[in-house]
């Protein structure tokens, strides 16, 4: 599971008012190289919730993303794009869990696949 996906996932358990972002518990992280596409990065940039993204990257062992003053002008920097690309698309949570920020309920991630299925009393 990529951090792009993490940034798009929420807990939808009944009664939870804000299920985003999910906290990450990482047991195994893998990296897979992907060619960079700057247009994609430039388009998706404004859709990314930056703070949770930085936190998630740190949890997976990558702490080179800027935390403050993240302006669209950064997208002109090749150095920034490279890091953004790496964190968003190349780092995968392979084994671990995603934790609901309000209830602490854990959604397991196995072989890179998050299990977001809810139990009957959670729907």
């Amino acid at each position, binding site marked *: 599971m990529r951090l792009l996906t993490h940034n*798009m996932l929420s807990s939808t358990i009944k009664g939870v008012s804000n299920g985003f972002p999910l906290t990450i518990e990482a047991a195994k992280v893998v990296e897979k190289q992907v060619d960079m596409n700057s247009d*994609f990065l430039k388009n998706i940039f404004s859709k990314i919730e930056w703070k949770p993204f930085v936190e998630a990257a740190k949890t997976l062992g990558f702490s080179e993303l800027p935390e403050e003053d993240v302006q669209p002008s950064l997208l002109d920097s090749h150095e920034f794009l490279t890091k953004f690309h790496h964190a968003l698309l190349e780092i995968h949570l392979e084994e671990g869990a995603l934790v609901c920020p309000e209830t602490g309920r854990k959604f397991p991630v196995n072989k890179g696949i998050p299990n977001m*299925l809810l139990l009957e009393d959670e729907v």
Partner: protein
Amino acid sequence: MPSKIADIRLVASHPEVYEPCDDSFALVDALLSDRANLLKHQPSLCLEIGCGSGYVITSLALMLEQETNNGIHYFATDINPDAVAVTSETLKAHGVHAEVMNMDIASGLEDRLAGLVDVVVVNPPYVPTPEDEVGQGGIVASWAGGEDGRSVIDRILPVADKLLSEKGWLYMLTLAANKPLELCGLMRRKGYASKIIVQRSTEEESLHVIKFWRDPDSEVQIKKAAANRGNPTSVFSRFSLLSFSGNGNASSK
């Protein structure tokens, strides 16, 4: 050069996972027939709901892959834990990637991915069955569709509407028993135009692939017509005639 789709010999399988069948092939043929439009469309995020074996999402990724870094990203969901595992293997065997998730329709994605998905594809559980078979899980979930085979379809449509971007397209496979005209009418009221891009009858079933896209005109027309006549059914029947003017196999949008 003929475009690539998933190689059936490389599609992983599992006793509890739906194997690619006539419906899967009809959906992939529909996507292939619309491939030139899809490439022009320049989608950024694509999503398959109910990916099963992974045959469809893998085929979509292969047919749109003109160059390796084309900037298109894929998501696939299924409610069946065995299906997501199989999809993941099928993708790997073809050297393409999609983010695979085990969830009910797109429940965990609806908030954050709202308005961002350019292409949604669905081959839903469409067989009319007793209502209590829906949600049984496993292989039963691959076909059990409840009354008119519409239980899951009717839950998917509002989700697709929420997720689709302004320019977004939805491709959905349906059975004649699902009342495709009525589905087009439902979507029309949400502001979508539609067209049947593949129609195919096998010995057992009559399958359609419907393509939906946002059409500002249809929204306006619906409002006007409703105001003028106060009778939505007349709008619906008029629309049905228009929408079903195309027939047979592939034609462009």
